[in-house]
């Protein structure tokens, strides 16, 4: 058998370190703390940079970005066309760029097609427009079933689509990141972009939800 089917040496080495290194029973909390302090002591990382990274995603980058992109696509046919033609460039015009959003593709829900995004192999997700993914998106139940039983998954999210609506699942196996543009709800004529963005839930941009109809509870607004 060729080397293809062998565990490569570097993995074996890492296993060894785990066996001879610290105990598996040491709580992860202590392990992470120790790891950070070693890396800081060695001058590899600066705690202030770590703080800044965390703060960025806790306070500045989240699904409101994507909601504004969607709202503009609903309102502005030219922007919608630009988003369809080159989502990375169109989204960049709104200032949302960078890590985990370097190569964007927008997919548009219609009565005929419903799009759903997953990363079966890890947790790829368009950070600049949606922020960091929720835990369920990274979880084994979602990753295992979204590609084989998407209607079953959607039902658990309360989304039941007509059987005539085709399901289009996008498994993000490369650095391309997918943004679902949900259908614009009825009764939203005349709303401005900010009010429209209020209706765009995070889940609707993953495909596990729909945009809210005006007047429905905003309790799930951030999802």
């Amino acid at each position, binding site marked *: 058998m060729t080397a*293809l*089917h062998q565990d490569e040496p*570097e*993995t074996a080495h*890492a296993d060894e*370190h785990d066996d*001879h*290194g610290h105990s598996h029973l040491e709580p*992860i*909390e*202590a392990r*992470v*703390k120790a*790891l*950070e*302090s*070693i*890396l800081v*002591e*060695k001058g*590899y990382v*600066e705690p202030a*940079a*770590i703080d*800044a*990274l*965390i703060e*960025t*995603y*806790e306070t500045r980058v989240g699904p409101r970005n994507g909601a504004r992109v969607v709202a503009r696509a609903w309102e502005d046919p030219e922007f919608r066309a630009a988003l369809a033609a080159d989502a990375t460039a169109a989204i960049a015009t709104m200032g949302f*760029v960078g*890590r985990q959003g370097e*190569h964007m593709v927008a997919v548009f829900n219609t009565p005929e097609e419903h799009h759903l995004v*997953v990363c*079966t*192999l*890890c*947790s790829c997700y368009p950070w600049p427009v949606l*922020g*960091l993914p929720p*835990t*369920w998106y990274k979880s*084994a*139940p979602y*990753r*295992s*079933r979204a*590609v*084989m039983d998407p*209607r079953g*998954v959607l039902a*658990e999210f309360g989304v039941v689509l007509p059987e005539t609506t*085709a*399901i289009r*699942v*996008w*498994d*993000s*196996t*490369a650095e391309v990141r997918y943004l679902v543009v949900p259908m614009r709800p009825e009764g939203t004529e005349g709303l401005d972009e900010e009010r429209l963005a209020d209706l765009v839930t995070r889940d609707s941009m993953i495909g596990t939800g729909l945009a809210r109809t005006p007047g429905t509870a905003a309790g799930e607004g951030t999802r």
Partner: protein
Amino acid sequence: MNGAQDLGGMHGFGPVVREADEPLFHAPWERRAFGVTLAMGATGSWTLDASRHARESLPPAEYLCASYYEIWAKGLERLVVQAGLVGADELAAGRSLRPGARLARVLSAEAVPAALARGGPTEREPAAAPRFAVGDRVRTRVINPAGHTRLPRYARGKTGEIALRHGAHVFPDANAHRGGEAPQHLYTVRFTGPELWGEGADPTLTVSIDAWESYLDAA
């Protein structure tokens, strides 16, 4: 590798569990695991592909039992040891026992916004013309590498159609293992549900993956 990370099409994990409040981080250590992983990534000591491989290389039982940032933290431990930046003895001791190596880059707080805005684009100048055009029928190859790959098991040996072309992109199967960027044309390939899952599959379903050219043969 056919590790525990390759979850598409598995049964038995139960329903999707959504948290009421959906905290980004569930404990202070998760925050730090996230931040320190990104900060170390910014030093350029390994590639994003290598870091994914470090995580998926956790023994399957450990991978499936671990919480998300636990996987990140354990992956980072492997990476720093593999890169020779930290000794296994230092991880065991919980503190630095030797001066650090000199890194080409260390991320400062001031540099964070620009680094995040820059990201890590993977598109490269193609060395050759693409072999496939949108609409072409292709068949994914049957491969089972022990190393990193982004061709999931459920989509191997399956026939689909080129749906999108993305230009040439860094090839993770090489880049994860110090094989260089070795860019290849990247395509979105769309399969029908019945092609992937057989009888009983939703006939309206399509599933697409992003696939590098060497994953594909003309069908």
